[in-house]
């Protein structure tokens, strides 16, 4: 427990936020690249 009584589970949140950003930004970039190649 942290001093304020909450459990130390922030690491899971950090992992989730990083993974979500990688998926969403990565897919957006992939579509951007695909659009640039298309006529």
């Amino acid at each position, binding site marked *: 427990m942290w001093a304020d009584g909450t459990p130390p589970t*922030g690491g*899971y949140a950090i992992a*989730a936020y990083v993974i979500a950003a990688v998926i969403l930004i990565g897919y957006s970039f992939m*579509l*951007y690249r695909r659009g640039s190649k298309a006529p």
Partner: protein
Amino acid sequence: MTLKTRGRSITLLGLLLLAGVYVRAIWFTPVERTQGGAQKIFYLHAPAAWSTLLAMGLVGLASILYLMMKDERFDRFAAASAEVGTAFACVMLTTGPLWGKPVWGTWWTWDARLTLTLFLFFLFIGYQLLRGAIAEPGTRARYAAVLGIFGMVLVPFIHLSVYLFRTLHPQPIVLKPSAPSLPGDMLATLLFSFLTFTVLYIGLVTQRYATGAGDAHVG
């Protein structure tokens, strides 16, 4: 402004809003007392689930319209929505276990909500494999439409599964008949994230639709 440019602009707006969601969720939303920091996964997981179900619902709707009118644009929209829905499903299915482990004590459990959601993800994948496997556009659109309608039928079962079956997964706290059961700060962040994911969905689908011929062809 072309459709592609419009899609890119909306996507960029969505990504900027997403950055705003991160800042608000991490620094300006209170930490839940019993779950700790892991509860903040909620602000990504629930909106990703919303976008996934929205995507599959619209795949099914576009599929029905395609079968009725034989307008190629509906098939193209369905293909775009399915691909974007797969990306959101990946977010939902990775953030869910990361939240479940510290809160439930397990990464995964085979209850109705989680199993149906995994099945929906497989339907998204199968939908795209099917599109990639059929060369003739008319046949591809017709077969894909049937699968898309199956996917749409699954959507209300997923939403209602927490009422119909015993499950570890919590019941809806916003999309339910009574008022949302969430403190104001947390509700504001959640609604902001719902809006952001909807904008992202619109932007990504517009881009994918404009790119058009994204379907693989045999031979």
